[in-house]
């Protein structure tokens, strides 16, 4: 049995009450599940002796520009032992703050892989997704005074005039 079948089987055995959507496209395995289990699933994938996904390659988010489940957080993991790459997807949870604004958030996996630290900061800077329990969540690329989130679909390519300042002569 190839890894593409072993991994979903192991996940279904260990986490009986979570739903996993498995898909294989162009020879890559993608697993999608609910965001509240992200920490447990990632820890299992890292520590399980047969799988050992020790290298967290990439964490990013996709903005689907629709009302429900606007952001999906995507994780790419690599197992050095099996030379196998895996993609995990989880929709960010929405919550209404007191002023009526929507806030998207998901748990941070920095406690499992340290490589996730800056990747999550970048996702926060570009999309505005808050990562719970992140040790140091601040902006990565844009200056701290910048108020918008550039990679969202409602932010124009040329930017908003006045949002970034030039030096005074």
């Amino acid at each position, binding site marked *: 049995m190839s890894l593409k079948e072993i991994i979903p089987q192991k996940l279904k055995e260990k986490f009986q009450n979570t739903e996993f959507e498995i898909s294989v496209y162009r020879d890559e395995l993608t697993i999608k599940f609910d965001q509240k289990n992200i920490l447990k699933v990632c820890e299992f994938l890292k520590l399980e002796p047969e799988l050992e996904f020790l290298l967290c390659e990439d964490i990013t988010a996709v903005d689907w520009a629709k009302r429900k489940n606007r952001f999906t957080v995507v994780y790419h993991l690599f197992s050095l032992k099996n030379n196998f790459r895996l993609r995990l997807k989880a929709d960010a949870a929405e919550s209404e703050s007191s002023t009526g604004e929507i806030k998207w958030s998901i748990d941070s996996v920095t406690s499992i892989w340290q490589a996730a630290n800056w990747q999550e900061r970048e996702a926060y800077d570009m999309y505005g997704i808050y990562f719970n329990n992140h040790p140091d969540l601040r902006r990565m*690329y*844009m*200056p701290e005074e910048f108020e918008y989130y*550039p990679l969202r679909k409602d*932010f*124009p*390519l*040329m*930017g*908003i*005039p*006045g*949002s*970034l*300042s*030039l*030096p005074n*002569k």
Partner: protein
Amino acid sequence: MGLESQLKEHGFFTTTVDAVVAWSRKNSVWPMPMGISCCAIEMMAAGDPRYDIARFGSEVMRFTPRQCDLMIVAGTVTYKMSHVVRKIYDQMPDPKWVIAMGACTSSGGMYRSYSVVQGIDQFLPVDVYLAGCPPRPDNLLHALIMIQEKIGKTKAADFKNIRRPELNIIQNN
């Protein structure tokens, strides 16, 4: 600025002084490489044994602004970086000249996006614009020769308050 500040009028004697002063200034232009991205690599290549920039007098590329008179801005300038570039420019002593190397500094280049300044002439007075992405090192040497000609034509008394190019401000933040 000793001798030049004493000269109040332009006459026969002063043209020789002009020529000597200008000749000595233009043959030892020390560039300050503001190397930010890909154009910086071509600037480094202008310093390597094949396109030797040292034979034009730019023997040293000092990284401290206090000792330089030419600033070569090589690479894309973003809004965050523009404050730093302006600060370094202000720290350079007079007289000073600026080369905008490459398409990104001349007009924003291929980056028409939210964080790139569309041309450094919005906050820095530029003397020579170089085309290319990145310009070949020979192109950079051509720009250096143009700056040298410009220095060669300046009269000695004008070095005190040198006439700077205008800024091309298209955005008022």
